[in-house]
């Protein structure tokens, strides 16, 4: 095929099927949900136009703000928990370590296990009467530190965040390991000749060379955490009260169990805009550093 030819039609034809599917399943639904968000609709009876009332309601809905706050906790836990931990282990595992492959597999394991299983197992470990954590604390004589991890609104969100961090560290570990392999050894050699210590090598060579990989990881992290749904749905169903409710789950509940399709659409548009803003902010911040 003549890549340099002026005629772009073959390219258009090639792209058409993919583009069509993307339009149908991604772009058009967003536009339709904008239309729905202006309606009061229970899915059964006729729609009623209500203007911006759904958005107004969302802004004055305490559960909406609570969910947003929890979502931001998840974002923070992911960005400031998953990424540093993954980076640390990636750099460790990149050395010639005995059993490095085993550790790599172990680290990646949680990513492969289905979220439902993770949630159920961690739910059992967090259990206040029979759970592993309280039992361990009692064994070492710290019985008064035992908590009702998932049943206490003070602790529920923290417990959930710890599980989320554990679940996805492996994914970023692999991304970082791949990035580490791409750093040419010559640079390290040169640094060693100049007398740079291991710590300085990490700080001035490894990290700057990995900037792009880290940037990708941060963006993945943010967009992933805004979508969090399955883990929390199984572990706490948003409870106790609404203390672990996140936006995606609140939107799902409002749309499909309370059958408020209009209000649910308004909420999903909020999620859409929040994601855009957060991803935009993070690219701006990361790009500034690069310049």
């Amino acid at each position: 095929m003549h890549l340099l030819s002026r005629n772009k039609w073959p390219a258009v034809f090639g792209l058409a099927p993919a583009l069509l599917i993307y339009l149908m399943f991604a772009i058009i639904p967003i536009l339709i949900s904008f239309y729905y968000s202006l309606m009061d609709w229970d899915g059964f009876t006729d729609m009623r136009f209500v203007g911006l009332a759904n958005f107004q309601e969302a802004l004055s809905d305490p559960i909406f703000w609570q969910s947003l706050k929890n979502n931001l906790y998840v974002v923070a836990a992911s960005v400031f928990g998953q990424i540093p931990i993954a980076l640390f282990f990636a750099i460790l595992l990149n050395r010639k370590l005995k059993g490095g492959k085993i550790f790599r597999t172990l680290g990646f394991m949680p990513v492969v296990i289905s979220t439902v299983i993770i949630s159920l197992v961690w739910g059992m470990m967090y259990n206040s009467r029979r759970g592993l954590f309280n039992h361990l604390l009692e064994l070492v004589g710290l019985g008064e530190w035992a908590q009702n991890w998932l049943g206490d609104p003070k602790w529920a969100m923290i417990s959930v965040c710890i599980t989320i961090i554990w679940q996805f560290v492996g994914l970023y570990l692999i991304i970082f390991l791949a990035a580490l392999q791409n750093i040419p050894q010559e640079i390290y050699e040169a640094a060693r000749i100049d007398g740079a210590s291991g710590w300085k090598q990490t700080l001035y060579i490894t990290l700057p060379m990995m900037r792009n990989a880290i940037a990708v990881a941060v963006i993945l992290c943010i967009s992933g955490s805004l979508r969090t749904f399955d883990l929390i749905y199984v572990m706490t169903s948003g409870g106790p009260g609404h203390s672990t409710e996140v936006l995606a789950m609140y939107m799902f509940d409002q749309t499909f169990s309370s059958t408020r399709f209009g209000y649910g659409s308004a909420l999903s548009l909020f999620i859409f805009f929040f994601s855009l803003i957060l991803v935009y902010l993070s690219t701006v911040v990361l790009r500034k550093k690069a310049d």
Partner: protein
Amino acid sequence: MKRFLSKSMALTMVMLLVLMAACSNGDSSSEGDGEKVELTFWNIWTEPSPQNEASLKQVEKFEEEHPNIKIKQQNIPHDQFKVKVKTQAAGQQLPDLIQVWPGAELTPLVDGELIQPVDDILSSWDGLIKEDQFADYNVDGKQYAIPANVTPTSLVYYNKKMLKDAGYDEFPKTYGEFKQLIEKLKGGGKIPIALGNKAQWVLQSSYISTIADRMTGSDFLQAVKNGEKKFTDEKFIEALKVIQELSEMEAFNNDFNSIDNIQHRELFILEEAAMMIDGAWSLGPTLEAVEDPENVGIALFPEIEGGEGDPSAVSAVTGTGIALNSELEGEKLEAAQEFLKSFYDKEYYNDLMKADILVAADIEPPEGVSPQLKHVSELTSKKITPVYDASLPVEVTDVLNSGLQEVSLGTMTPEQLAEKLQAAMEKQK
């Protein structure tokens, strides 16, 4: 270049054609060729429970007797089923036959004219099903489904031996005595009441539906819906205070907000807990799993001092109704009606009773029915009151479900919950 273009054009056209052909093929095969009638049918019979097996048997039997009618089933787990029905209803894509629940689940389907009444064939059940048993599936004088079972949602299961050890030969008659019993059981190091409220509906369906009835009387919910009474009435707040009081005196296992209702049943079965408050759906599985079924006692929630309700009343809901899609007509409609007639026959009700399920039909219990089922059927024969989530709009139920959880945690007072409920109720109009 030109030649290349025409080639790629041709290729795309071929691909499009194949796609279209594939699509249209799918359509024509589902239509049928007229000789064999096919009916789509959604239900929740996924678990291998005796009730589900009895229901599936009825479908099989019907297909054997009617070789020219095919019932194409989709068995979907309960929670997902309800979500799926709502979503497909919004897209006007419901199946020909749909399992339906009374109240808040049924009325939107009726309002949206998505299902049609079955009044034409109602005479088939003359003498088998009484009028008040039909009532839950009746909306504005029209019957939309045939009830199969009656499910009391609020029974107190207790371990006879453990209560005896605490000094109680009989289940306490009043709430005051009930609290004393709880204190005594706690002193003995056992969990007084097993509760798993992670899914949030348990405190509403199994607790408040009956407890509130003890305080307010059975006409309260209807009066609230009509705007004559309010959730902020003192009696209803006192009912909410019962939940607060029970959790403050640590009557429940302390992880009650992080386990579910299956897990709380296990606590009771393993004799870690002396009591559980649960619906009749737990009767069969519990009797099957405990070492000594004779040791399982069943009672109603005790009378509350100062309450206006009938202490023999219990919240219950009828179930396993099947509704017909409003678009059915002609041959398909006849087939569907034939299916309903064959499905809800006497044999089905007998099978259900043998599986420890109370039925919504007026027949003698067959031989081999457990004494516990007979006992439950006596307990619940006096007065039936509505279950909250079957009579309130979904949004109000949602507020109640999560609010009760907060009251049990102490992060919300009963008064605050009552106000939120009333506000949600008023927003409905």
